[in-house]
């Protein structure tokens, strides 16, 4: 060990290191503490505690239960005594007059009573006057609605359990087997079933309730068109509209992204130090890029909606405007990083300016260009969903409206699944195209440097 001796004695060095480590400790403790302190501040500022109190577990249950189940309503109009059965209580899901699922026995000439068998011993009967609900382990609830006296309900002895909500004019009983509501005007039973009912065929379709095997046979014997038509025009799930909505969303993303790329490419040259000698032009172009990018596509949607009205074109233009700024910035950064050698090589052969750009510049920036375009195509599919929700249309509008009106959570679930699939598909597609189109791409390293930092 023949290293030359240094004059610093070890004790001094240790002191030095002690100091260094005390600093390091302070530093490595300070950062997490800072983060924690900030999160604590946000926790208080956002009133998370109050929020937790307000949180409504019932809503969560409704949402979860509804997203994979549907309910069938059996409704009695207390004035006319008419009983109707409808899936989700909607007209388009209504059973034709005189028909009902087998667990509902409609009144006929022999009896005036509607019997609703909720299974496991739960049974509701709509009598001519009185409505009864048999609940195993509790007893029978009897309710008599009348215009003058409200809803008179009789319960088995004992305290009212909390799943019964009764007032002078209204009775609501919620059980796992089903729910009963009685008001002066109506009596209604909801029974829940798992699954997305009428997903393929509505009740009025001749194919409703048919097995896969039979459908296949029928399809093979020339009914395929009719079968498809019934699914496609399903009033309950509206597959046709949903398909159009998805298409519109993708269309907005595609037109917006590609249009922005086409416009940004020539403009980007004007924003670069190496291709635009005029400082003022450069500066102005960059500020324009910053401006359209800073405003955000959503606000552009609102602004453009006046001129173009609602619809996918407006959404596409909004994406186009914003991304022109984004691409302008990315492309101009890529252009500033181009290798001058290649341009010089082409120039030395006596190539014309256009040729110099074509062969000296474009081949260098195509990888950045393409991969950014494709990245944004995927991320704009998401943006288009949001934009659609504001004015455009498309799946975003369907989704937000379904959520806001909070009626059909199974539709919400359906849309969410579709959106996730759509975005994942675009993600996969853009990745695939990137790999195909940019063969021999220099890899992540190049993407990470410089321009590629602007990944969505």
């Amino acid at each position, binding site marked *: 060990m023949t290293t030359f001796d240094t004059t610093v004695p070890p004790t001094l060095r240790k002191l030095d290191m002690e100091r260094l480590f005390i600093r390091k400790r302070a530093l490595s403790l300070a950062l997490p503490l800072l983060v924690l302190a900030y999160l604590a501040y946000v926790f208080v500022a956002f009133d998370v505690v109050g929020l937790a109190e307000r949180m409504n577990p019932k809503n969560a249950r409704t949402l979860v239960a509804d997203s994979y189940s549907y309910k069938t309503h059996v409704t009695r109009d207390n004035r006319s005594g008419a009983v109707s059965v409808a899936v989700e209580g909607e007209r388009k899901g209504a059973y034709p007059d005189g028909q009902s699922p087998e667990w509902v026995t409609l009144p006929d000439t022999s009896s005036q009573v509607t019997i609703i068998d909720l299974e496991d011993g739960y049974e509701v009967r709509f009598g001519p006057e009185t409505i009864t609900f048999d609940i195993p382990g509790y007893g029978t609830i009897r309710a008599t609605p009348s215009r003058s006296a409200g809803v008179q309900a009789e319960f088995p002895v004992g305290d009212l359990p909390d799943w019964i909500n009764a007032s002078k004019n209204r009775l609501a009983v919620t059980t796992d087997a089903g729910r009963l509501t009685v008001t002066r005007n109506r009596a209604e039973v909801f029974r829940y079933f798992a699954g997305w009912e009428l997903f393929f065929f509505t009740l009025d379709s001749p194919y409703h309730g048919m097995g896969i095997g039979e459908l296949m046979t029928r399809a093979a014997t020339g009914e395929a068109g009719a079968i498809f038509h019934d699914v496609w025009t399903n009033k309950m799930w509206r597959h046709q509209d949903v398909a159009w909505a998805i298409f519109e969303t993708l269309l907005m993303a595609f037109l917006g992204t*590609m249009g922005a790329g086409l416009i940004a490419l020539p403009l980007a040259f004007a924003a670069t130090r190496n291709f635009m000698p005029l400082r003022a032009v450069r500066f102005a172009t960059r500020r324009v890029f910053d401006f359209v990018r800073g405003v*955000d596509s959503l606000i552009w949607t609102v602004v453009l909606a006046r001129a173009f009205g609602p619809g996918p074109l407006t959404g596409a233009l909004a994406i186009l405007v914003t991304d022109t700024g984004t691409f302008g910035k990315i492309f101009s950064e890529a252009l500033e990083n181009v290798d001058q050698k290649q341009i010089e090589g082409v120039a030395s052969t006596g190539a014309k300016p256009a040729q110099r750009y074509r062969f000296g510049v474009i081949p260098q920036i195509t990888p950045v260009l393409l991969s950014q375009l494709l990245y944004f195509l995927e991320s704009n599919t998401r943006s288009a969903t949001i934009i659609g929700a504001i004015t455009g249309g498309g799946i975003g509008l369907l989704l937000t409206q379904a959520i806001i009106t909070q009626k059909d959570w199974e539709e919400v679930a359906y849309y969410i699944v579709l959106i996730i699939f759509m975005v994942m598909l675009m993600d996969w597609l853009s990745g695939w195209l990137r790999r195909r189109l940019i063969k021999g791409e220099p890899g992540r390293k190049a993407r*990470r440097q410089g321009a590629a930092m602007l990944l969505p």
Partner: protein
Amino acid sequence: MTHATVSARSVADIQADYQALIQRKRLYGGVILAVFVAMMAAGFRIADDRNAGSFWNGITHVFDYPSEVLSEAVEKLSLLSAHVVQFFPALIETLNIAAAATLIGAIFGTVLSLLATRGLARWPALIPVFRRLLDIFRAIPEIVIALVLIFLLGGGPVPAMIAIAIHTAGALGKLFSEVNENASLKPVEGLASVGAGWAQRMVLGVFPQVGPNYVSYALLRFEINIRASAILGFVGAGGIGYELRNAMSWGQGRYDEAAAIFLLLFFTIVLVDQLSGLLRDRLTHGAKQ
């Protein structure tokens, strides 16, 4: 020029091959170009057709709305400063949503990215699971989560924060895992050889390598999240977006408010954008040295 690797193929062969190649290339190139042009043209026509107003009618009216807003804003210029003060707290709320979501998302993204990177994963068998999880986090648009959470938790900043954080975790997780893949495994192995646990290997072996890139990506995400947070305000998540939508929605009579809010938001975005750009530049620059 006797070259050692002269192959048996004659020049004529090479020329024929190349000719075939170039013709194939031209064909593919032509087809791709034609398909792209056709898609753009058809897409434009469909979009134009399904839109309420047409492109060529609308293009002349693009400035109608901005000029309406501007003229009212100019008319009531004296109220501007009062509006800026009035809406400043909402801006802070928006920034807080973005910052908190970025932080939380980055923390989760970091952990998920480590779990999803070959060579670093705590449970290598579960890598595909964590990768899919990241994909799903990324695929769900913030607005979906936000709306559902608003239903569950009521309006306000928290649903937006959670929604953005989930998306951020997915997006950053993917970027981080790409960074991780480029990180050298040697220090990690070195730490493994002294009997360090997983957390120690990650924090002491991986973080020093990937730190600057992580921060750089997180800053970029913060910029994006400010917009996202403003947008979610539009659908009821509070903050400046909520104020902007109410003002814009009311329209004439409150366009001055809209203009003030817009300016506030715009300058914030530009400011953060520039600052983080500077910081990122320095970080990647420092990392290169």
